């Protein structure tokens, strides 16, 4: 791992050019992610950081890891993020109000703890151990090498993590699920009910709005054969808002002397 990192710094391989171009872009995007106001922009920049990371993995011959990073994180996890963001609101920017007392202190402590953990783990993983190099591990192909490690040496850890994730998923489902006492009244039932009870005129749908050739729009009630407006032909929302055009202009009335 260390050898590879040193190579990048010293040789003028295509890989190092790739690094010089993408690394600043990646860092700028990561900083921008923290600074932009809109949540969707933030998510987008994070997705970009993930893609550049994946490209670095691929450049360092960790092909499988790079591709899976894009499929899982960019493709699925970030897509879920975007879905929630879009569902919650298009224009909501983050509220900076603190709801929990001392949230700032707690988060700083947590961040420092996490950072310390990461640094110690990484240093233990790389320093003071014999480095066999990537070519030995990849001798049977990158995907096969990972598969062998995953299903022999780390099979227990792998299974524990999968059990943890499944527990989390099932827990979320249990918390979010609500049992319906009755089955839902769907379109089909509605249609059957319309025929089963009520009168013949209810069997068909409501009349459409608008008077052809005079004012064909949703804000004007249809005229019945008698010449009177049909209030059921316009949306209740429009009625409540008062966004209705006066129908008297379109009603059938006695022809006056002037019209003739």
């Amino acid at each position, binding site marked *: 791992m260390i050898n590879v990192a040193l190579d990048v710094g010293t040789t003028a391989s295509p890989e190092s050019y790739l690094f010089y171009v993408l690394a600043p872009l990646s860092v700028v995007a990561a900083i921008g992610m923290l600074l932009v106001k809109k949540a969707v922009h933030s998510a987008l920049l994070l997705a970009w950081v993930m893609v550049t990371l994946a490209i670095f993995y691929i450049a360092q011959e960790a092909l499988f890891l790079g591709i899976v990073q894009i499929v899982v994180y960019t493709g699925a996890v970030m897509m879920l993020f975007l879905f929630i963001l879009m569902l919650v609101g298009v224009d909501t920017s983050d509220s900076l109000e603190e709801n929990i007392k001392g949230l700032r202190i707690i988060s700083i402590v947590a961040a420092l703890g996490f950072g310390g953990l990461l640094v110690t783990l990484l240093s233990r993983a790389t320093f003071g151990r014999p480095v066999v190099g990537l070519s030995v591990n990849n001798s049977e192909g990158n995907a096969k090498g990972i598969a062998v490690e995953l299903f022999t040496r780390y099979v227990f850890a792998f299974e524990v993590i999968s059990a943890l994730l499944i527990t989390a998923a099932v827990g979320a489902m249990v918390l979010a699920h609500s049992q319906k006492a009755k089955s839902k009244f769907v379109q089909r039932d509605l249609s059957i009910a319309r025929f*089963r009870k009520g009168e*013949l005129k209810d069997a068909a749908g409501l009349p459409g709005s608008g008077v052809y050739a005079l004012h064909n729009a949703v804000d004007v009630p249809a005229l019945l054969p008698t010449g009177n407006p049909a209030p059921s032909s316009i949306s209740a929302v429009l009625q409540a808002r008062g966004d209705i055009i006066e129908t008297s202009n379109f009603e059938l009335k006695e022809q006056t002397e002037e019209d003739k």
Partner: protein
Amino acid sequence: MSNAELIGQDPGWVIVLKGVLIFAVCVFLTIMSVWGERRIVARMQQRSGPNRVGKFGLLQALVDGVKLALKEDLIPKAADRVVFVIAPIISTTACFMAFAVIPLTGQVNFFGHTTVMQMTDLSVGVLYVLAIASVGVYGIVLAGWSSGSTYPLLGGLRSSAQVISYEVAMGLSLVAVFIYAGSMSTSEIVAAQDQWWFAVILFPSFIIYAISMVGETNRAPFDLAEAEGELVGGFHTEYSSLKFALFFLSEYVNIIAVSALATTLFLGGYRALPGLGFTEQWLGGWFTLVWFFIKVLGFFFIFVWLRGTLPRLRYDQFMKFGWKVLIPFSLAWILVVSTLRVMSQQGASQGLIATFIFSIALIYVAITTLLDRKKAELTKASREIKAPEPSFPVPSIPNSRAEQING
């Protein structure tokens, strides 16, 4: 020599030329497939279709492209300008990138240089296509969000949910192929179909992939992200001129791309039909390109056929189908396939394998019978509406009629 080694020996000019050629073929195919789709759908609907511009209307798509480019390019006031412009670019770039790993021919003589028509041969080539497809969907989702109006947003939302659910089924359908081919590289999967196409031995996987690829490309009957009856134009409602043209282009390139992947994974790729193996040497190997495109265009015809035949699914039905039918079924299928594979590798007797298949069939029948019975009870309970008989004639309702007849 394997494909990966052959490609590794390509000099720079061959790589560049290959890239340009593959790009050109994609654009040409797109233009022709727009024309083809309109003609085929017209035929299915007893019309003529475009037949004025050029012979058989062949130039219609080209003329439409020019018309689109000359239209006014609008960006709505409420739109998020940067994302609004980036979205179609992401969509188009991603769909072309998928072609990099598809082997279009066997070994050919490329201007005096022996190579294969494939840009690169990754050991995880199929996963690469999945990754690129999932990036491409960002274009649609972001287009929906950045337009700053309701219908595109709904289209974008639908699209993101659709992709998450159908990508799972698609990925699972590929697992069986990986198990049988022993590799995730496209060229090795083609080579593994030497004897039998995977569409034959892994038929359920093929069907699941075929269904989810229609869902993945936003095509009828799964075109809920742009359902024109419900959402005006869906995610591209606010787009015009060249930006719309890019979405249009990417939709068709995507169709060709998923068809090409399906051909590679299940129909033996560029290999000739069974019994016509001698044709693979014609034209110095270039004839394999013809086989490849015959298969891809066959898939394209099925896409058009589906569009001409099936009405659009309702959204909840579509989701239910994805999560409650496709995914459980493919999980069960993977279990069966991997068990069979291990059994044959360990040298199990034919009798044991037959017993296994028989018991699986038995379990399947038992489960479906139980499910049917439960469903019948549920429907019976929910359909009992206690209302007086109406005083006017009503059409017969299938369920209650069946109950009357059967008691």
